[in-house]
């Protein structure tokens, strides 16, 4: 399922043997992989990529260990040919953390390293554009450090004494001297202060002197901001675009407008309290998010999920995939200018699926359905005045296949769709891998990499389905991959409905409100509709996670946006963004 101990099958030859100097196996209890010296990192990572074949750097993140005065940068690399991964770490001095940047080797690390810089203050030597990414330039402090406290800070760990067991809740505003969620450095004088400008990004994108038309005609380049409040950015997302006429010369995404501090809050929460928060990452796919988080914690706990619960999980997750892809396709058409009508068709059947979610989990969108070792509730007996199983059978045998065929019939051969999508935003397979792209974006570039097959989890090995790929890597192929994947998901759902054991446990052990998780680290990942969703969890053996990191597919996929847009027209930018299918809750977390 994930990074694994060196001894496991398919694992690399002992990395420490290859590099006797500067590489040591990580021997802390429950930890896996290797600790690499900062000086050797580039060399070791180069060998990991080129000699050992770990061509896909899934996740890069930081962990703060104030006790040993270190900040650790953790890398998870995998092979696109499948199999378990390799986890290696670099430790840096907490007072002045510097680590060589891996952007040269794995360009997909660019945004993730910027995030670590933003959150932990680790400087990455050789990074092409090391600026804050989620917070704004000028923000005081690096918020994910363990000793950094937010203005509404109450205690390090939940449950807070003020709420439990006494329950004398106060409004947090009453504690803050400003009556709001703010704090300032002691020497801050608003009258003497001028706000930081955004010149840094504009300067970086200053169009080069040559304007590319042979110098006959003097033309100016234009900088345009799209967003953060714009109807086609799918949420609060901003792009700074440099234009030559209508052609995009350069593009940089600006994000963080929906940065809701999942990770900081997640490290105060107990393990179980994080479950509903995962719903709100990719809020179009809450079930899949639950699944990834449950898997990563279950790996540490070593619980076995009962049979019926596994079936329920797969059912819910695959239905979620259909919802999410329907949404993506509908709103891609929106971006193409077919305003609203296709989207209304596309999300019609989604309502049926949401009804099932609501009847089962209690909420349409924020399902909070899975638990460590199972799921929280069984299917209801009846739904919309029907027996639930009859409803489900009708849904997956008739209605969904029909709805998918309908979309296919209306759209796939549409002249307009083809004219706007074929050959737009082309992404080559090798580049997609190098940039750690995931999901339909990767598979539409011809890379056969779907975690359900490449690194099977749950009970996917029992089902008959194909991994959908397309060769051209353009917007049209991404659309087609989504249509194909919905069909495969329907097939899986049909098999689930036919094979689901009736009755039986849905949760291992008895329901607990607080779980103690054995010490160690774990990286659990699933194939979420948007791509590879990973949770990196570190436990110290208590009830709260020491580190809770989300490797969000939308966030990493955006690294490629600029590359894909260059040379296209401004109107295509909107379409290319739509074809990546981002959800801001997950981009900014």
């Amino acid at each position, binding site marked *: 399922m994930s990074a694994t101990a060196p001894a496991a099958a398919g694992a690399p030859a002992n990395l420490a043997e290859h590099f006797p100097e500067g590489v040591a196996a990580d021997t802390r209890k429950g930890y896996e992989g290797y600790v690499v010296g900062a000086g050797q990192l580039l060399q070791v990572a180069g060998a990991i990529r080129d000699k050992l074949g770990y061509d896909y750097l899934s996740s890069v993140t930081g962990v703060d260990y104030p006790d040993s005065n270190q900040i650790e940068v953790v890398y998870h690399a995998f092979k696109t040919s499948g199999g378990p991964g390799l986890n290696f770490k670099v430790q840096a001095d907490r007072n002045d953390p510097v680590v060589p940047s891996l952007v040269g080797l794995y360009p997909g690390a660019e945004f993730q390293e910027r995030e670590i810089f933003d959150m932990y203050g680790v400087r990455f030597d050789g990074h092409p554009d090391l600026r804050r990414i989620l917070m704004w330039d000028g923000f005081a402090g690096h918020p994910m450090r363990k000793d950094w406290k937010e203005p509404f800070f109450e205690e390090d760990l939940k449950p807070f004494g003020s709420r439990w067991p006494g329950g004398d809740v106060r409004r947090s505003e009453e504690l803050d001297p400003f009556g709001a969620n703010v704090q300032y450095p002691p020497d801050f004088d608003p009258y003497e202060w001028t706000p930081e400008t955004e010149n840094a990004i504009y300067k970086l994108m200053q169009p080069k002197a040559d304007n590319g038309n042979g110098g006959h005609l003097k033309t100016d380049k234009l900088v345009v901001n799209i967003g953060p409040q714009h109807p086609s950015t799918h949420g*609060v997302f901003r792009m700074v675009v440099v234009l030559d006429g209508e052609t995009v010369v350069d593009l940089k995404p600006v994000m963080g407008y929906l940065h809701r501090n999942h990770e900081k809050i997640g490290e105060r929460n107990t393990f179980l309290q994080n479950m509903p928060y995962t719903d709100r990452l990719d809020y179009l796919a809450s079930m899949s998010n639950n699944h990834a988080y449950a898997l990563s914690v279950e790996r540490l706990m070593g619980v076995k999920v009962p049979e019926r619960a596994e079936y329920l999980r797969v059912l819910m997750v695959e239905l979620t995939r259909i919802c999410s892809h329907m949404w993506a396709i509908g709103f891609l058409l929106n971006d193409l200018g077919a305003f609203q009508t296709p989207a209304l068709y596309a999300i019609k059947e989604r309502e049926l699926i949401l009804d099932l979610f609501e009847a089962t989990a209690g909420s349409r969108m924020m399902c909070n359905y899975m638990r460590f070792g199972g799921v929280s509730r069984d299917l209801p007996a009846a739904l919309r005045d029907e027996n639930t199983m009859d409803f489900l059978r009708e849904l997956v045998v008739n209605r969904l296949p029909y709805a998918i065929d309908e979309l296919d019939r209306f759209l796939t051969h549409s002249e307009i769709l083809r004219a706007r999508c074929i050959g737009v935003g082309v992404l080559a397979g090798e580049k997609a891998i190098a940039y750690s792209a995931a999901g339909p974006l990767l598979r539409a570039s011809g890379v056969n990499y779907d975690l359900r097959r490449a690194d099977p989890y749950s009970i996917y090995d029992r089902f008959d389905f194909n991994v959908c790929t397309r060769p051209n890597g353009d917007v049209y192929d991404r659309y087609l991959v989504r249509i194909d994947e919905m069909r495969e998901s329907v097939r899986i759902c049909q098999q689930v409905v036919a094979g689901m054991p009736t009755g039986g446990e849905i949760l291992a052990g008895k329901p607990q409100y607080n779980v103690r998780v054995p010490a160690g680290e774990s990286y659990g990942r699933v194939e979420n509709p948007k791509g590879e969703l990973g949770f990196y969890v570190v436990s110290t053996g208590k009830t709260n996670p020491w580190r809770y990191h989300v490797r969000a597919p939308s966030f990493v996929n955006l690294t490629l946006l600029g590359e894909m847009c260059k040379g296209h027209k401004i109107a295509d930018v909107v379409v290319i963004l739509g074809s990546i299918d981002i959800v801001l809750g997950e981009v900014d977390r």
Partner: protein
Amino acid sequence: MIDELSNPDIPVPDELKASVTITTLDKIYNWSRRSSIWPMVFGLACCAIEMICTAASRFDISRFGMEVFRATPRQSDLMIVSGTVTKKMVPQIVRLYNQMPEPRYVIAMGACASGGGPFKEGYNVVAGIDKYVPVDVYVPGCPPTPQALLHGLIKLQEKIDSQSLRDVRWYKSETNEPVPVPLLGPDLVDPRQYQLIKQRAMQAAAPAEA
């Protein structure tokens, strides 16, 4: 419609009932406003998805005359704050609000927009949009179901019904000051709090100097 508008105290002859109604200016003014509230295309987070579902076929917001979502604040009557308000985003939200012409209304949709919701303690989260712009209707839920949002919209219609031309603020002679746009500094800086910030900073610095 006629029944809804006409004043029962003033009788209209039967033969004219189909074509004549006698009503007050307030009533017809409010009736036309409440039946064509144009919201702004403005989605912040998860709640926006439910807002879109409210506008889609099943829940059909156009039953209330509100389906005309406008992409510019200049043409909008209603801002549905549908999601978590972050510090990085709040300057833009305030600016959008300032750009809306009067009469304008604000609905805080969901727990986040109303008071910070599940992310209240987050360092980048503003605990409720009402810290900056006045809110007319709060819709609870995380996210509120489409039915709940529709209920909130109906409440807003009731509020509009209760207003009178005589005392609405947009026909008063004094101009409406725009809400000061907050700035991004070491933390979010509210221009209305400059004095307080300076004072607290001095207090905090004092013991160190002493």
